């Protein structure tokens, strides 16, 4: 497998607060990379650095480089809009926009002035998000009428509509019931065939269930990074062992 994202000595600050220091790791094409760690360890900052969403934060500052297909995404002349479509993101809290389910799905095509006739794509992405059967008869109803779990799967489908290369997921199941969580996990494993997934999660078990490789973050650093099985069964570092076995976090 080839490397799709290459993070080299990457550090980030919010003003004077150091959020990430000296991160080095690479993400392989068509894998699910799990990122675990306690609250405030920098895993969300890391994720939001990959699609440069943190550029919206006034005092955010970075050092080092992140290569995407060999292009440093922090180069001056990178088209942020194009970058963010290539690295689609799903947020922790489902954020459907006001409007119908279909309007939500067509957000991306609306932004790109593409014709909104992507009917086949709508069905494909809704199926991929395990939502098609539940919403196929109510595409013209408000997205707010959906349940929390359905909303989050809609957000997943909305992101898939962008046809990204990489899917960035920020604790996508944090507020969801077990059934919705299971559906999303199932969807992710299926999706792996088409794209690369980076999954930030608070739920250690979730990482162990779906991730091919896992990185353990602590206080802005990567403590351990390797195959999921190795991280969970035979961790090299003491902190990793304590975290995955539930001693802290």
């Amino acid at each position, binding site marked *: 497998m080839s490397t799709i994202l290459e993070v080299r000595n990457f550090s980030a600050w919010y003003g004077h607060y150091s959020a990430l220091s000296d991160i080095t790791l690479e993400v392989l094409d068509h894998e699910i990379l799990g990122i675990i760690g306690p609250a405030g360890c920098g895993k969300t900052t890391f994720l939001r650095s990959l699609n440069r969403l943190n550029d919206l934060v006034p005092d955010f500052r970075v050092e080092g480089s992140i290569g995407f*297909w060999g292009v440093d*995404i922090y180069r001056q*002349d*990178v*088209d942020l809009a*194009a970058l963010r479509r290539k690295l689609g993101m799903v947020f922790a809290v489902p954020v459907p926009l006001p409007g119908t389910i279909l309007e939500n799905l067509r957000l991306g095509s609306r932004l790109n002035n593409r014709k909104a006739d992507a009917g086949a794509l709508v069905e494909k992405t809704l199926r991929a998000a395990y939502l098609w059967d539940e919403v196929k008869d109510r595409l013209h109803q408000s997205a707010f009428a959906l349940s929390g779990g359905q909303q989050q799967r809609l957000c997943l489908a909305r992101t898939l509509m962008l046809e990204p290369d990489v899917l960035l997921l920020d604790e996508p199941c944090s507020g969801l019931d077990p059934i919705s969580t299971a559906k999303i996990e199932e969807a992710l494993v299926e999706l792996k065939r088409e794209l690369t997934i980076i999954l930030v999660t608070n739920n250690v078990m979730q990482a162990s269930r779906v991730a091919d490789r896992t990185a353990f973050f602590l206080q802005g650093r990567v403590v351990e990074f390797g195959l999921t099985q190795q991280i969970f069964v035979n961790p090299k570092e003491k902190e990793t062992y304590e975290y995955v076995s539930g001693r802290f976090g």
Partner: protein
Amino acid sequence: MDRPPNERLLLKGKRRIIETLLETAVRSSAFVVIGALVLIFVFVAKEALPLFTSADVHKEVTLWTMVRPQENGEFVWQPVSEKPKYSILPLAVGTLKVTLVALLIAIPLAILAAIFTSEFAPQLLRELIKPVVELLAGIPSVVIGFFALMVVATWLQDAFGFVFRLNAITAGIGLSLAVIPIVYTVAEDALSAVPQAFRDASTALGANQWQTAWRVVLPAAMPGVFAACVLGFGRAFGETMIVLLASGNAAMMSFDPRESFRSFSATIAAELGEVVYGSPHYHVLFFIGAFLFVITFFLNLAGHWYVDRLRARLEGKLKA
């Protein structure tokens, strides 16, 4: 394996140009706001400048003759007469007189009402009082002036037997109606900005509601309340139509609030329509306008400085 889509990641020219154009347009509108304020001052001051520089104007009036006692020791504003007289002191006295009356009525009423809404009033009443004040603010000042002239003047004269039907008390009452909304709004904002924790702490120490309001909330919100007074002063100082209609418009050098008067703003309104363009009188009126601008400018600056200080103070206290 896909070919790395490098070129697709880099900025496309057309979209970037559109974005830049729109950003420039939006940003320039912000400069228009600054520009408007600057232009107002520049163009009012420009027409006032000959008062300082023009020899022709100096034959008739200088800054010095505007404040100095005239030949017979009097201070007279009589710009349209054979020998024009331009003493601005009666105007200053008139303006201060009416502003004082208006503030004496408006400030206690507005601040007490603000305390009531933020501290004592039940939710339902609160929802009722705010629209009332908004409605009051929405009444055009010419309507208030008309009302003061037609109704208030008659009532007051019947009640107190004023010699002058239109005087500083009548105009001051009218003016207070225009000042109350701004003082109330700013003061109410300041009082509501005081964190609930202050009130809880005070109650926990055994203070009752009015003690909390008087000894804890009001002092904490003081910079904001002070800002309300300063901004109210600015509003009263520059208000035109109410004073123009209800003052009697006699430029008398009298501190008695029961006598007619004339204010700076009303003088401009009443005389600029008739004045010869470019005459000394014209320039003097613009000078008064520039003076009004400068005074209200600094009053506003001061008002907002106090509002900022309140915010800093409350946030600072919360952090500590």
